[in-house]
């Protein structure tokens, strides 16, 4: 896990991720400005650090209702505003970017942050970015595979010789600056099904597994498939970290948490994915064996520990701001994580 700057003895890492969504509050119909939203994201990262969280990441979605299209710039600001917390993208759509430029950006963020930057590269679940940046959806898979491979190569080799189909060849190219300690942790973002997890395993890179809802046992299939694929391809699964990510919302009681966050998640899903979140599924989300971490601090602790026991993952990343959840609610959640949830998670998962 050294390449990933992780020490499993310190227990399960706890982080927050945002897609930078920018959605009207379903209660008032009003939307804060993009400027305010971006500043609140930077502020949220600072508060996460103060509360003792390990990780904060920002994603890019190039469509209406999102605001961190320039996610590397936001991460640069977060790098400057924080001191200890690890920072990453969640995810960087490498398919439609130039891996050289992405690496230059993240190596720079790594230097600004004194060695805290990571890249999570994904294929995009919202694909407006393909038209916008002039790529064809027909090349969806190959664009990602080729560019992700190049990104990993740049991470491993300071002087790169490479040629491929979707970018001009590189001949003895020196990709600068180099990150603080020579390389960056690079992860592959994966949706639910095992098919995609297997690809991360084959590549021998860390897996960021997004899980919206559903039984822990279903996602465990993806994790097992990932480890098996890694092993088959000559990688040691013991060296490959797994991060899981999904909805999070804590309140005094589970009922209260569900009541407060449901309208946000439902509206957010409607606007960004075109379908609300069925109440029946959301209600089942409170079961201790469902991956959705919405509930009282006690329920969330029980769920995360159960997930950790089943997955053996190294990092959990909470998405708590989806659908325009207001900043005061986010602050309260950070406070609950820092004072109630995190100490228990560390107590039961740390080994020293």
């Amino acid at each position: 896990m050294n390449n990933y700057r992780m020490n499993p003895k310190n227990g399960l890492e706890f982080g927050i991720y945002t897609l930078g969504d920018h959605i009207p509050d379903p209660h008032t119909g009003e939307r804060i400005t993009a400027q305010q939203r971006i500043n609140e994201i930077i502020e949220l990262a600072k508060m996460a650090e103060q509360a003792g969280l390990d990780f904060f990441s920002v994603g890019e979605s190039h469509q209406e209702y999102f605001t961190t299209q320039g996610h590397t710039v936001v991460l640069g600001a977060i790098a400057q505003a924080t001191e200890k917390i690890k920072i990453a993208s969640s995810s960087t759509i490498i398919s439609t970017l130039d891996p050289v430029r992405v690496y230059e950006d993240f190596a720079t963020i790594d230097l600004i942050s004194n060695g805290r930057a990571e890249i999570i590269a994904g294929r995009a679940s919202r694909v407006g970015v393909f038209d916008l940046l002039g790529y064809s959806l027909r090349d969806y898979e190959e664009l990602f595979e080729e560019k992700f491979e190049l990104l990993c190569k740049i991470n491993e080799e300071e002087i790169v010789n490479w040629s491929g189909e979707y970018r001009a060849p590189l001949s003895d190219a020196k990709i600068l600056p180099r990150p603080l300690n020579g390389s960056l942790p690079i992860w592959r973002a994966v949706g639910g099904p095992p098919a995609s997890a297997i690809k991360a395993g084959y590549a021998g890179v860390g897996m960021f597994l997004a899980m919206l809802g559903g039984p822990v046992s279903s996602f465990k299939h993806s994790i097992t498939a990932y480890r098996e694929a890694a092993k088959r391809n000559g990688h040691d699964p013991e060296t490959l970290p797994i991060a899981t990510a999904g909805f999070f919302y804590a309140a005094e009681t589970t009922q209260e948490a569900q009541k407060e966050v449901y309208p946000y998640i439902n509206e957010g899903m409607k606007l960004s994915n075109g379908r609300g979140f069925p109440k029946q599924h959301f209600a089942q989300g409170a079961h201790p064996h469902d991956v959705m971490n919405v509930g009282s601090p006690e329920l969330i602790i029980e769920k995360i520990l159960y997930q950790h026991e089943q997955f053996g993952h190294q990092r959990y990343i909470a998405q708590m701001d989806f659908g325009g959840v207001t900043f005061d609610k986010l602050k309260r959640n950070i406070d609950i994580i820092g004072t109630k949830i995190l100490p228990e998670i560390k107590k039961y998962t740390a080994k020293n």
Partner: protein
Amino acid sequence: MKLVGLSGSMVGSKTRTAMNHALTILREKYPDIEVELIDLADYDVHFSDGRNYLEYEGDTGYVASTIMEADAVLIGTPIFQASIPAPLKNIFDLLPEEAFVDKVVGMIVTAGSPKHYLVVEQQLKPILAYMKATMVQTYVFVEEKDFYRKEITNDDVLFRMERLVEDLVSLFTAYEGIRKAKEAEYGF
């Protein structure tokens, strides 16, 4: 309640004729229901390329969104080469996997001969079931011999259509009531 009639063929007139009859019955019996007919022959719909339906533009985006926003869908389909027409299958491919959750779907089928009666049972219903539709199980099957110069001449067909329309509305009303009562119990 919002109902969309989806006439799933680019050619011929029988399906459209049958749909016109059904929607006329619907409008007369239930004037409060908002009704819109989408005849695929009138739209330039692209083939599905896997993106989220919200990201299609033009007619494709319009047709997909209109269906997604409906509470009930009445599908009219001919039978081509022992199956549903490609344009209709394309509509399903454009939509998300669980597109028909909480939607009620009824079906009217037009065909040249009774030999194709089970095509809907074996090919259309499994697609709708996969996409989580609540279906009116009985569909109206209309044959060539029931039409004359773009009119339906068989009273039996019209009576069956009337029952289909009634069943569609009853089923939606019943399920909506059940769902609302269930959702009220959750307390969120």
